[in-house]
């Protein structure tokens, strides 16, 4: 893919951040000036569960990506087993280390023993969505654009998270956001385990 196409599809980090801020402002019916990367979705912007879904849908449309439906901790639980990350509703030491590594935008001071799993979502900030969008855009840019049926170069769909072959009409969906998120979790898990090994 020509470099100019990649740049247009992914945008610079600053462009992506501005677009995410604008999407969240629109979803929350607030002026964009009130939305900062450090804004807490719940405490600063008043987001409720439906708002998270609305933001995910809106980001999918804005960036033509497939946004994950499960959050980082849910995906991490798939990898490690929930009992290793949460005990009696409280995040374990391993869980805290995963969060610190995998969601670096979270306030490190809040990632302390005793943190309840129900409190994690309350810690989400706008930068959380910026990071996820950047990861999804990178995953999209890395996808093979060769049509599996006819070999032509596929183009992005104008309306859906998929590539469409201009030659034969074949459509190929983008990698799901949940898959990309899982890959992120595995990468973070490897890094955390390597850190743990080097400490011991």
């Amino acid at each position, binding site marked *: 893919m020509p470099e100019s196409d990649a740049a247009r599809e992914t945008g610079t980090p600053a462009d992506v951040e501005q677009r995410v801020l604008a999407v969240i402002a629109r979803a929350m019916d607030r002026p964009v000036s009130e939305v900062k990367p450090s804004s807490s979705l719940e405490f600063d912007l008043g987001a*409720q569960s*439906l708002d998270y*879904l*609305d933001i995910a*849908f*809106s980001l*999918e*449309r804005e960036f033509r990506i497939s946004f994950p439906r499960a959050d980082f901790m849910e995906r991490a639980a798939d990898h490690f087993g929930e009992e290793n990350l949460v005990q009696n509703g409280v995040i374990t030491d391993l869980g805290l280390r995963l969060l610190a590594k995998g969601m670096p935008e979270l306030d490190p001071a809040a990632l302390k023993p005793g943190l309840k799993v129900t409190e994690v979502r309350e810690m989400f900030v706008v930068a959380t969505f910026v990071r996820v969008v950047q990861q999804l855009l990178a995953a999209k840019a890395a996808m093979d654009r060769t049509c599996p049926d006819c070999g032509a170069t596929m183009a992005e769909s104008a*309306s*859906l998270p998929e590539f469409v072959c201009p030659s034969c009409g074949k459509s190929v969906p983008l990698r799901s956001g949940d898959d990309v998120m899982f890959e992120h979790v595995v990468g973070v898990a490897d890094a955390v385990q390597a850190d743990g090994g080097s400490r011991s």
Partner: protein
Amino acid sequence: MGTLDGQVALVTGGSRGIGRAICLELARDGAAVVVNYRSRNEDAEAVIAEIRAAGGRAESFAADVASEKDARALLAHTLRVYERLDVLVCNAGIVRDQLLGAMQADDWDVVMQTNVRGVFLSIREALPQMMSQRGGSIIALSSIAAERGGRGHANYVASKGAINAMVKSLAVELAPRGIRVNAVAPGIIVTEMTGRIRTFAEPEIRAQIPLKRLGQPEEVARAVRFLASPDASYVTGEILHVTGGFGV
């Protein structure tokens, strides 16, 4: 000028019976209509031909709404063609009548798949668009049977009861985004689906209906059109009975 001018409606199971009447009614009131069907291509083509002949806009699309892949493709097609979605009518439904003691598990499952899972998938796939538009009207076809029950169709009755419960839940869940969710519960309507019961018991059924006649698909369609339109702007979470008084 119709109350649905400029709006886009998707009707699942729209090729015949009540679904067909709904497609025609919504188109008559100005909506562009996507006529979903599962297998009867000729029937669907006849519906869109009738709409187009009257100056309306319509497309057909084959999809089994119980299939996640198909439901996704159906919504994608709608958005590719019309770029918006204002009205979703979840009409696709089937019957597999049998006394429960003789009912096969497959009879139960296939009815639940189409009548409940199909509604769930259709609505879920429509939500991103409706939420971004900050509005929409979702209408599911229920049945008076959901409240009256009846011998020999526990699977169908349970599926329609599930729809009623789903409608009330979603009305609350989606109200913050301006999306209204309602159901229409027909009584005994003259369609292919009710052919068997009409053959065996029409006089007895008529006797129980205060209006002393069976309903026509167009009478159900007009109730759907009302709920779809701005005339019902303050109506959500309702089950609108179109029964001629049956069950009152």
